[in-house]
């Protein structure tokens, strides 16, 4: 029963965070006007409707989708690898995406520091495509290897090595790039929920929903994997097949998010831990909805903080998620006597 209450609380929290992220920003839009705008009516200041429709609503939706995707993906990776420090990117998905973006940004002749604006929609999409291709390429390698590897631990180490190797290529590209290109690449690595346009939204939404659907189908195998691969096998689970499905699933979620929003740190690591503490269980049937809500909420709040409401300035999104996420994980690890039991 108490789990139901926690889940309901988390959902309410999500609604509040969603409302706040629409209402707060460089200009504050009162709730009454906000509801009017969302209902299709007019606001007391006409510009507000434009702000909500073209900037805040897509940004808030993106935050919800991205936060959910990363958190669910992190939960899956932590269980699959039986490792409390696993996150959506342990297999080098974000390194692959970074390489894709780095190739586009650092080698294609970009004009000045405003690359995305300069190239317009085409440039916008090409970044997403490059990141998707990069993430997909790394994941393809991991998947090929996973068919031949017995233990998940080996796979984890291989994934880490892929990440390092890909990172090395990025370093080389940066070394030969001009400062303006480097700046726009760095800008991408800061992450942002604000770059998904309405035209891109259907693709992004479809990818995330596909991932979430798969994630709910993977709940039972993941619960079995809590006992370890041998027990899972003895209960009738085809461990290799389940592992591939979970990897595909977690990588769709992480890859799509990274492609559209850049590499967002710590959400995927911290949210599953937070949910386990709140619900006091590792049962994925209870965790999955909670992680979905809390991931979206934290993403919205992080974005809200990053935009420093009431001021014209903004912080890098990644800095904010790390500043929120790191204390959560530290607190969680210190709280448990045995970190290996912390997932």
């Amino acid at each position, binding site marked *: 029963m108490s789990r139901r209450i926690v889940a309901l609380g988390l959902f309410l929290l999500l609604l509040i965070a969603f409302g706040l992220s629409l209402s707060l920003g460089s200009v504050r839009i009162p709730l009454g006007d906000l509801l009017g705008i969302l209902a299709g009516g007019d606001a007391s200041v006409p510009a507000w409707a434009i702000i909500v429709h073209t900037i805040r609503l897509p940004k808030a939706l993106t935050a919800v989708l991205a936060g959910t995707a990363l958190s669910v993906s992190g939960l899956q990776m932590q269980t699959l690898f039986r490792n409390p420090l696993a996150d959506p990117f342990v297999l080098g998905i974000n390194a692959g995406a970074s390489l894709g973006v780095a190739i586009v940004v650092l080698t294609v002749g970009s004009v000045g520091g405003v690359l995305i604006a300069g190239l317009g929609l085409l440039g916008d999409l090409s970044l997403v495509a490059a990141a998707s291709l990069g993430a997909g390429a790394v994941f393809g390698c991991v998947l090929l290897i996973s068919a031949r590897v017995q233990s998940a631990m080996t796979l984890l180490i291989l994934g880490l090595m892929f990440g390092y190797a890909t990172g090395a290529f990025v370093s080389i590209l940066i070394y030969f790039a001009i400062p303006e290109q480097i700046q726009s690449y760095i800008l991408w690595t800061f992450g942002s929920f604000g770059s998904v346009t309405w035209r891109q939204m259907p693709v992004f939404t479809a990818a995330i929903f596909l991932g979430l659907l798969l994630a709910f189908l993977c*709940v*039972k195998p993941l619960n079995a994997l809590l006992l370890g691969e041998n*027990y899972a096998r*003895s209960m*009738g*689970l085809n461990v290799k097949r389940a592992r591939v499905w979970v990897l595909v699933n977690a990588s769709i979620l992480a890859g799509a998010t990274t492609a559209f929003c850049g590499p967002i740190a710590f959400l995927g690591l911290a949210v599953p831990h937070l949910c386990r503490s709140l619900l*006091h*269980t590792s049962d994925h*049937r209870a965790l999955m909805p909670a992680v979905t809500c809390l991931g979206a909420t934290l993403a919205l709040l992080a974005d809200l903080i990053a935009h420093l409401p009431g001021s014209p300035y903004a912080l890098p999104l990644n800095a904010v998620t790390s500043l929120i996420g790191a204390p959560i994980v530290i607190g969680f690890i210190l709280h448990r006597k045995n970190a290996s*039991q912390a997932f």
Partner: protein
Amino acid sequence: MEIQPVKDPVLITQNLAVGYLRPRRVVACKINMSLERGEFVCLLGPNGAGKSTLIRTLAGMQPPLNGRVCLMGKALADLSATEVARMLSVVLTDRIGIGIVSARDLVALGRYPHTNWIGRLTDEDEQAVLWALRAAGAAHLAHRNVAELSDGERQKVLIARALAQQPDLLILDEPTAFLDLPRRVEIMALLRNLAHATGKAILLSTHDLALALRCADRLCLLPMDGALQTGAPEDLILNGAYEGAFQSEGARFDADTGAFVLNAHLGRSAISVSGQGRAAYWTKHALERAGFRVTDAESACHIEIREGEPRSWRVERDGAIRECPSIYELIASLGGLNRD
């Protein structure tokens, strides 16, 4: 009238060879065994004889190198993983690094092969979980976090999980390995009673020879090199198989007492003891432990236990006499005498 043995085997192996594929290494071969309903069978064998490999092969966790395993009359290789899981469940030595899961939830995971796609528990599943918790004597642990249980409690919960799977055959790999003696006896008695009460066949591997002798309906002996032998524990003692499987330089199996004794040190002499009751028993025990041969006949060395407050031991050897206040000092002084 001829008595027909009741044959309703849960598991049969035919000319089974177990071991590893890459590189190919046969650990044990020509294994022909069967497990009957309601039978509690212990698999014994020295380290390295292949108990775990055999257990894993029987449980379908690694393929046989040769021959086959039949579960409920069907070849294991022809059954789907879920079909096997409904007939056979296991308790392994794997560490359970499970995070935050209550004992009840862990036992409920045993319903895995019976539940729907998301693992929802029906009333029938709930009943099975409750029954399993009670049958394993773990009902009082239901709401505890598995990570906080003691070794013995966790073992009971894992047995309950295996029972919740409602198998015909339960296979356990060294379930008593990390437990103290009372807990070991408790687990063995629990499993034997379960086998007899539920009609499930239970096979476990163990190093606990003495306990296996007392509890098992049947023993399977896997010697270092040689064929698997099965039979009632007493059969295996009488035909010498038991002694043969565990012979080593340091110890031997005493078929008269059913216990292992350390081999006497060479060169240690015979000693006679006079005294009564418990003190005499434990004095002889200590002397044998130290490698002396205790004899009733006249010998060059004689120990007299003098009851009183406090008790003392009087050693007479080759005319020399010494008083010892404890068995510890008695053995120490004999060691000194022996070195002369």
